[in-house]
């Protein structure tokens, strides 16, 4: 894209982010150390990629989860929240456990989507080891198949408190 077209695009689109909804109630077990700043490591434990599109949407310009202090990071060592999508497959069982162990405390595990909560459509599949709560302790859940970006943003805001 040429420079002038990009300048025109920036000028025409202006602010894409929608107005922020009211602050949801805080999560009861929310560690106060995480107030205002939450780094998130996303783990796809065996998802169909439907939830990934919605997670991408939550951090896109329209829902803009970053304005509430939530940010996706590249390493579990930098993270406070492990966001897990999909059923836990046999191959992802150990990587998921290790990712949560590699996250420094205080940490939370957020299970996003019906598959992560109770295996959803893939219950009883031959490659499925179980739901996320069968493998690691889950602190927060977001229902939906797939959940809307606004629901994911709301769950994150319950942690950041912004």
């Amino acid at each position, binding site marked *: 894209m040429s420079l002038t077209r*990009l300048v025109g695009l920036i000028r025409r689109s202006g602010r*894409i*982010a929608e107005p922020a909804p009211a602050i949801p109630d805080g999560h009861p077990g929310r560690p106060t150390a995480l107030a205002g*700043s939450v780094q998130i490591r996303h783990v796809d434990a065996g998802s169909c990629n439907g939830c990934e599109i919605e997670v991408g949407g939550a951090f896109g310009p329209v829902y803009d989860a970053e304005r509430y202090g939530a940010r996706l990071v*590249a390493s579990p060592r930098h993270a406070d929240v492990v966001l897990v999508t999909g059923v836990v497959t046999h191959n992802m069982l150990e990587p998921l456990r290790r990712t949560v162990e590699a996250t420094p405390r205080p940490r939370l595990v957020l299970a996003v989507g019906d598959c992560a909560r109770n295996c959803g459509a893939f219950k009883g599949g031959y490659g499925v080891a179980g739901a996320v709560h069968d493998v690691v302790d889950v602190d927060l859940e977001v229902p939906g198949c797939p959940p809307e970006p606004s629901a994911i943003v709301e769950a994150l805001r319950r942690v950041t408190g912004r």
Partner: protein
Amino acid sequence: MSAGAAVVTVGQAAVLVALSPLLVGVMRQVRARLEGRAGAGVLQPWRDLRKLLGKEPLTADGVSWISVAGPLVLVASSLLLCALTPVLGTATLDRVPNDLFVVVAALLIGTVALALVGLDAGTAFGGMGSSRHMTIAALVEPTVLVSVYALSIPVGSSVLSQIVEARLDHPATIWSPVSLLALLGLAIAIVAETARLPIDNPSTHLEVTMVHEAMVLESSGRDLAWLELGSWLRLGALLGLLATLLAPWGVATEVTALGLAVAVGALALKLALIGSLLATVEVFLAKVRLFRVPELLAGSFVLAFLAVTASYLVAS
């Protein structure tokens, strides 16, 4: 004079510690607004730091004391760099002059500490990041030295304070071809040194393309907080140096309370302007291929070298 110099030196470190996270916040905010997002606010880097300092540091298996000492060495060298950069006043301590070579040495200590932290955990990405970081550092440090050296030739001293004083006395020299060439070379070197686009992408999640981020992948908690603060301080000090050389007005030549207050205000304004400009330019840039980086940095070295040659020709 010595007490005044101490105030200026400590003040520069303290003010840059306060302003550098805000500078990073402003740069992220400008980028967010240009992308149509609302942005997390300019205070977000401070919130991140506060949170990281309160977390338990987890380390990988088999790491040595380098992983704990490295971040502290980086912060200490960055603080020294901030204290020695004449962004507030030109008074200098007698024993520790802010000589060009001292400043570049302080910069290199931090660079090496960061590279060792990247190597310590023994991961593939950390080693890759350190190797790239040292490659870039080897190309950048000579450019920083040579470009500021070009500015020091007309002044006859490599002490940064005297260069800034000379530019305050003769503002016409700022727009001389020698000065512009040297500052352009210095600007490219600073962008590379502080791991900004187009050399490195500070917000990347793709490990294969990382330089700075790859080195800190295994750090957590307060170790990560020190690494982040150290890198932000380097950004603040180097951009502050560039802004001071480009627009020296506001820097206090005499140590008075009013003069220092004006200098702090001027520095905040200059950093906000140069940070916003850099963030705006970054929106239009993509990261260049790693193999093209030496070409870009060789170009900046040529600019700095031309500035040195030209300054000798002009002088004779």
